């Protein structure tokens, strides 16, 4: 079972990133739980969601040890780095997370997600770049399969956008490159 936390500013699409991860995982037969954080998200500040992904029934949807942290901004690193397990993974959005010292018992994939998505002319796609990096870095699913899952997800909603796949692949690539 994998425990994933996805965190960032309110507007960065962290809940959506988590949702995508949850959805595609479900489609590929995983059991999952997705728990949003509370607080005054509406009025800015940090948002986060917390997923557990596994092969059998998820018992407790809450967890205090994070296997994979998707950190869209610095605050997220500050808030959650301590909770990452030894040997865990942090995917850090290096466009915004700068000059951070990371623990050395964890793997860190620094991906310039905001920059990449801007570059791809899909500024709202930074979360998908991060997701790509997460899949790439953790090997949770084959990258192509997951990309198909994303397409299917948006396709069903009638919101297909080839840029999303591109964002995802660029993120995955960046992580694999590390």
């Amino acid at each position: 079972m994998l425990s994933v936390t996805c965190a960032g500013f309110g507007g960065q699409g962290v809940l959506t990133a988590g949702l995508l991860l949850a959805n595609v995982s479900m489609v590929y037969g995983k059991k999952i739980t997705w728990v949003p954080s509370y607080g005054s998200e509406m009025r800015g500040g940090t948002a986060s969601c917390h997923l557990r992904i596994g092969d059998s029934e998820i018992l407790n949807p809450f967890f205090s040890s994070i296997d994979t942290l998707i950190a869209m901004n610095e605050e997220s690193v500050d808030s959650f780095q301590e909770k990452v397990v030894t040997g865990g993974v942090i995917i850090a959005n290096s466009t915004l997370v700068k000059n951070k010292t990371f623990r050395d018992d964890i793997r860190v994939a620094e991906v310039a997600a905001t920059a990449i998505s801007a570059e791809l002319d899909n500024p709202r796609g930074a979360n998908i770049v991060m997701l790509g990096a997460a899949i790439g870095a953790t090997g949770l699913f084959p990258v192509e399969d997951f990309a198909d899952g994303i397409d299917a997800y948006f396709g069903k909603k009638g919101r297909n956008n080839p840029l999303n796949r591109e964002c995802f692949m660029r993120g995955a690539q960046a992580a694999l490159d590390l």
Partner: protein
Amino acid sequence: MSYRLMKGNDALAEAAVRAGCRFFGGYPITPQSEILEYLSSRLPEVGGTFLQAESELSGINMVYGAAAAGFRAMTSSSGPGFSLLQEGISYIASAELPAVIVDVQRYGSGLGDIFQAQSDYHQATRGGGHGDYRMLVFAPSSVQESVDLMGLAFDKAEQYRNPCLILSDASIAQMMEPVKLPEMQEVDPDKPWAAKGKNGGDFKRITSTMYYIEDFDGYIKAKFDSMAAAEQRWENVEVEDADIVLVAYGISSRICKEAVAIARSRGIRLGLLRPITLWPFPTNAFKEVNSEVKAYLTVELSALPKLEDDVKIACEMKTPVKHFLGGANIPESSAIVEEAVSILNSREEVSWLKN
């Protein structure tokens, strides 16, 4: 049928529609507002009525009216709003009408806060309203169970002509899990007792049935006694050989399930008794627990212990009953295991078993 990823609140709402609910009257309050939001577009699709009421009082009384007219009807609220429903619930119960009420529990008395809690247990199980009634109270511990119990709640409400309560909480309501949804059910609203004009027959009086039933006291006691006997629901996890049995419902039961798994992996014989109905409290579940059990440990997200009384009575106070309270904080499963271990190791006996 395939899985759909849904929020607890949305799933609850969709399940209500599929259970034949055709009227919703209610008022927004976090963390249950998604139920309104979902139904505001969904109910009209199936020819039902969604009405955002000007208040919870108005909402529950619209539900009373729609239920009196024979339709499956529902309202939902949380904390302060749930308190405001109590008079209306008491009326619906006294008129012996079916209806479903949802309380998505949040933390705190007064205004409180919007995160999960399980502090409304007494209010839910002992009638927060005045007089002599009980509600069947269903406590889902997952999104799927929210769906399943919603259907059951509507059926049982109609079977017993009594309001039923779904006692959810902010975490179950806000989390997402894959669910399978049941088929759409069509329910005939033309009950013989429904207020819809007398159409040549006798006129119908939807009011407290006490005015028309002889030995009403005996009647109503028998009604609730029979519900108490027939409607207990629970899930027991490894209680057959457990030294300590956790007792927890809803979200905290899931933390406890993890605690059981952790404990068992460490060779500690922990079990879990999970009430699915809170009223009636599943006393029968305790018969499945091995008689050598050393203690019960209730786990609830509440500042004051509430389950404890029911557990004491259910186990006839032959076994010590301890509590583990998560209030504003979600307890860690490991902490529950530690607590269980320390109970096992402690020499200290519970006072009532000393003398």
